[in-house]
Structures are given as structure tokens and as C-alpha cells.
């Protein structure tokens, strides 16, 4: 069943068009993440879904019902805000039960619900405190509790972790994921953090300037980005993008990068054949360039050895990021930390060509 359908939604603030033709179809039980840089319209879209803002044109359906003219309280949603939006003068308990109070739920039932959520989120000890007396992480939990105490068709999360420090953020991320797996709820989750998107989502919508560029499962978004923006936005460090020229050889189509001694020739998919003789942008993820002993599978041409100048070496502990010079451009490689490259040497690397993407240099769209 479709839990949420966003159809041709646009939003203008005055003359500024903030959302342009948004279409999303989200099935029940999905964890959908809207990801994109700050200011791209994620919160606006979420507020429109919640009914806190009115779309300029288009339709919102929740649980198969058109809700364009339905006020937020009747949309069967719960929302967690970036600032948590806890009611400052109420205790944690009152914060959690306020929704039930507004809906005249009997007191016994309210208490039961609070007890259940407090246990789930381990906030039993702070039920009688005011938000001001809580730490950031605790406030975040209470904000979650306020949403979880209901059993809505749709949960909306607006950057719920962005105000937490890095460690807490990682912990809460895992908890949210577990909650979703346990409760099976339908979630639309907004973040500007691509790692959060990758780790949490069953589906990712990548947005830029009010447009959804790609709406796919995380693996597809990561491995087959629809365009250069998505390719560079998802993944850290980002995908290497190098200018290349397609040539036809007896072994099929190859992309030629750079020239001279360190010229690189990568086999590319046949689908790119119509671009032979033309410039393209070749995208290759840093983890697809590694030390020469790395094994990338048996397929013919899967692994190609390349030679490149080592410009910068950044050990991170778990792996080492090496900045290479390829032609006039730079590319990142993720190599084993046990290998010790020297600055300025021309070293050999193994490249995984199976996940190479090609993009149209004019439009940025993926060719193959």
C-alpha cells in the first residue's frame, strides 16, 4: 500500500520557487530519506506533507487519502523537529501526553502510553523534568517519544540528529534504525548528511534546489548516481570525476584518461558506445582505486592496473587516503593502511572498473 504520495508539488514563497514538480511515491514500511544540501527545500517539503505549509500546486496523499485540505492534526502523522520543539513550560510527561490531551484520550490510557514509550526510549527517570533540565541527547529522545507515543500512518523527521555531537549522533542513528526495524513504521526522514541517508534509508531522494534528482534505493543512488551532483554529494570522500575520452578498440569501448606514460585506459560499458570519440566525465569511487594486490573479482577487465603520481597521503587509521595526480586532475584512492607510499613517487594501483560511471559533461546526466 502506498503510505504517501507527493504528486507534482510546487511551492513558491513570494516570487521564489522553492520546490519544483516534486513527485514521490512511498510504500508502507519504507524508511525514506530526503537528502540534500542546506536550503534545497527539504524542510519545506516535509512541512507541506505535515500540513504546516500549504503547497502552491500539487497533491499530497497520505494512506490513499488526499489531504490537501486536511489540517495537520487530522493527517495521521507525527513529526520530530530539528529544534525538538519541546514545550518549554511542560514536563517531559506532559510533552509526551499533550497530543493525547488534545484528543481527549482517557487518563489511564495516556499513562499507559507514556510508560510504554518511556521504557522504549529509556527516559523513565526524567518524566517529571522540564526540557531545560535535559541534555541535548535527552531532549532528542523526548522529541522522539512525543512522536512514538502515537501510532500514525507516517512519521516525519526533520534533521532530528543534527544538533547532537558526533558520537551521540552515531548512537541515535543506530537506535532510530532499530526502532524502524522493530516497529515497521513508515518514515520520511530529512537530513543534509549523506552518511545518515545511506545508513538509514530503504529509499533515498536526493534533492537540489527544489528538485528531486534521484529517488532510488541506497545502493543504486551510490553505485549508479543519476547525475554528477548526486555522484559527488553521496559518499565521503566523494566520487572522483575525471575528464575522459571514449575510444573504440578491439576489446570494446575504453575511456582514455590523461596521456603520456601514465595514460589510463578503462573498459566501459557498451551502452556508452554512442559517445565514442567524444569527451565524457568518468566517475570512479575512491574505494575503487586501491593498492595493486587488491582483488576486484574475476570478470575480464574488472581490475585494471594504473600508475599515478602520489601527491598527498592521509592516514585515517582504518585506511589511508592517497591523493593521486591523473593527467591534470586529482583523484582519491583508499588503500590499505599497511602500505607505505612515498610522496612524489609514481606508484601502481589497482582500479575496479565494474562500478565506473560515465556522465555527459554538458548536462551532468549519467550516460552509462
Amino acid at each position: 500500500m502506498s503510505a504517501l504520495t507527493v504528486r507534482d508539488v510546487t511551492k513558491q514563497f513570494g516570487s521564489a520557487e522553492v520546490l519544483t514538480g516534486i513527485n514521490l511515491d512511498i510504500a508502507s514500511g519504507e524508511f525514506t530519506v530526503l537528502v540534500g544540501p542546506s536550503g534545497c527545500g527539504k524542510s519545506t517539503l516535509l512541512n507541506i506533507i505535515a500540513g504546516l505549509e500549504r503547497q502552491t500546486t500539487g497533491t499530497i496523499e497520505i494512506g490513499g487519502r488526499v489531504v490537501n485540505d486536511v489540517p495537520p492534526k487530522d493527517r495521521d502523522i507525527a513529526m520530530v523537529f530539528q529544534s525538538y520543539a519541546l514545550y518549554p513550560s511542560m514536563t517531559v510527561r506532559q510533552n509526551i501526553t499533550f497530543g493525547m490531551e488534545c484528543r481527549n484520550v482517557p487518563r489511564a490510557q495516556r499513562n499507559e502510553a507514556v510508560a510504554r514509550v518511556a521504557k522504549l526510549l529509556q527516559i523513565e527517570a526524567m518524566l517529571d523534568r522540564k526540557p531545560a533540565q535535559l541534555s541535548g541527547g535527552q531532549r532528542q529522545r523526548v522529541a522522539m517519544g512525543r512522536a512514538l507515543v502515537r501510532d500514525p500512518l507516517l512519521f516525519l523527521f526533520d534533521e532530528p540528529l543534527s544538533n547532537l555531537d558526533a558520537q551521540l549522533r552515531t548512537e541515535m542513528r543506530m537506535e532510530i534504525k532499530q526502532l524502524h526495524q522493530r516497529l515497521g513504521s513508515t518514515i520520511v526522514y530529512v537530513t543534509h548528511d549523506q552518511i545518515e541517508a545511506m545508513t538509514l534509508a530503504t529509499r533515498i531522494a536526493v534533492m537540489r534546489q527544489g528538485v528531486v534528482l534521484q529517488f532510488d534505493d541506497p545502493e543504486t543512488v551510490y553505485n549508479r548516481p543519476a547525475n554528477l551532483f548526486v555522484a559527488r554529494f553521496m559518499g565521503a570522500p566523494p566520487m572522483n570525476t575525471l575528464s575522459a575520452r571514449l575510444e573504440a578498440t578491439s576489446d570494446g569501448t575504453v575511456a582514455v584518461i590523461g596521456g603520456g606514460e601514465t595514460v589510463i585506459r578503462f573498459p566501459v560499458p557498451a551502452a556508452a558506445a554512442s559517445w565514442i570519440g567524444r569527451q565524457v566525465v568518468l566517475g570512479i569511487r575512491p574505494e575503487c582505486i586501491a593498492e595493486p594486490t587488491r582483488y576486484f573479482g574475476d570478470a575480464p577487465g574488472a581490475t585494471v592496473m594504473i600508475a599515478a603520481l602520489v601527491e598527498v597521503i592521509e592516514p585515517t587509521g582504518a585506511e589511508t587516503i592517497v591523493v593521486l595526480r591523473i593527467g591534470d586532475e586529482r583523484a582519491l584512492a583508499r588503500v590499505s593502511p599497511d602500505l607505505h607510499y612515498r610522496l612524489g613517487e609514481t606508484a601502481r594501483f589497482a582500479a575496479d572498473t565494474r562500478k565506473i560511471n560515465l556522465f555527459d559533461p554538458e548536462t551532468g546526466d549519467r550516460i552509462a
Partner: protein
Amino acid sequence: MRDTTFTPGRILIYLAVWSLAAAWLVPLAVVMLNSVRTAEEIVQTSMIGWPEHWAWDNYRTAWADFCVAQTCAGIRPYMLNSALVSIPATIISTVFGAVAGYAVSLWRFPGDRWIYGVVTLGLFLPQQMRLLPWTIVLRDVGLINTLTGLVLIHSIQGLSFTTLFCRNYYIAIPRELIGAARIDGAGFFRIFRRIVLPLSPPILIVTVIWQFTHIWNEFLYGVTFTTGQQQPVTAALIALSAAVADVPQHGVQSAAVMIAALPTLLVYLLGGRYFVRGLTAGAVK
């Protein structure tokens, strides 16, 4: 830490501050001193002087006996009039201002800015300009020369200020709070009562002090729209100083002025802390 070094610049600043303070306080001191001097003493010596005999009786006379316009009941009835105007008008203008400020700051509705603009425009209209319209209104609703008429005027005119003040305070309340409450199922007034009002004491204290002081001290409407027994104390004080006697009754008049100033002074002393804080500090974290 207290900085006790006296640079020339600092001394200049202190001089300026103290002179200004003195300029403000001298009239008050003169009135205070005269309020405990006898009429004869003031006439025979000078308006400015230390009391030879402490004439505390002036206060009793001013409060209960002195004759104002043929009635010899002191300023007590006029004090009551002022209270009967100031208290309801303060409450009404504050309550409505708070709701209006809440509506224009935290809700969007067609014409919201326009309404706010028109309401606050009232702050910039000179009082004299409003006399004639109010005369017509009071005449038409039959409230000329009534305390209710004054309550009506002050309640409505106070809205400009109270709306402005509450709006500027409430604008700092995160809109997400309102969004959360709307999703929770709360409506306009429930959100006001349960979420906004509990955050409001600082601004409400400020508006109450401001409104009460202004309405209590207001004079023009008082003399224009009321006469005789219906006048607020500010208007009655004029009648009192115009009272003819063998000897000018400066002592009693000063005592009357002191009594008339007391309520606003008390309000300020009780809530002044909040007033200063409310005017400077941002609203809600």
C-alpha cells in the same frame, strides 16, 4: 568587578549622569518637601525650602477633606475613579494585546501584516488628533462623562502598544513549537493558553506596568470627556490647583500630587526589575 579608576573621561560621564539625575529629581524633591510644609510657610518664605514644621496633616486634608469644585471630599473619590479606569483598561488592553501579538507573530493569515501595521499605526497618531473621533464615538454610544467611556478609550488605544510589545516578544518563540502543537491537535487558543502564555510573564509584567502608568497618568482624555465627580485624579488635580483660597494651598496640593503619583510608583517598584529586563532581553530561548 567594580572599576574604580577615575579617568577624566569617566569623571565627565559621572558629572553628566549626576546632573541629569538631579535635573530629574529636583522637581520631585520640591514637591515632596512642600507636601509637608504649611501653606503659610510656603507663602511667607519660598517655594523651595526645608519644612520648619512637619505638616503631615496636609496628607490627610488632601486625601479626604480638601475641596475640589464645590465637593469637599479630598482626592479620594478621584483616586478611586482613576483606579476604576486604569485597572480594567490595563487588564483588557493587555489581554487583547497578548492575543493579537500572538496571532500576528506566530500565525499566518491573509492580511496579517496589514492588520499589524494598522494596529501599531495608532502609536504614531498624536493624541489631539484622536480627540474628535473619540468624542463622536463616546457620544454615539452614550458614554460621555462616564468612567466606562475612559475604559473603552484606553483599552482600545492601549492595543497599539500592547500588541507591538507582545508581538516583538512572541516573534522569538520558535515557529516549530506551534507546528508541533498543531500536529498534536491543539488549536489557536489552546496553544496560546498552554504554550505561549506560560512563557509570557516577563512581557505581561512589562505591558501591565506600562499600561497602568500611562493610563493612570493620562490627562487629556480625562479633562476632555469627564467633568466633576467623574474625573480621574489627574484631571481633578488641575481643578484642585485652580481652587481659590485666601492663601494658595501649595502644601496640600503637593500632598495631593504625591498621593496621586503613589500607585504608579508602587507598581514600578514592584515590577521595575522585570520592566528593565523585559525591555532589553530577548524573549524565549
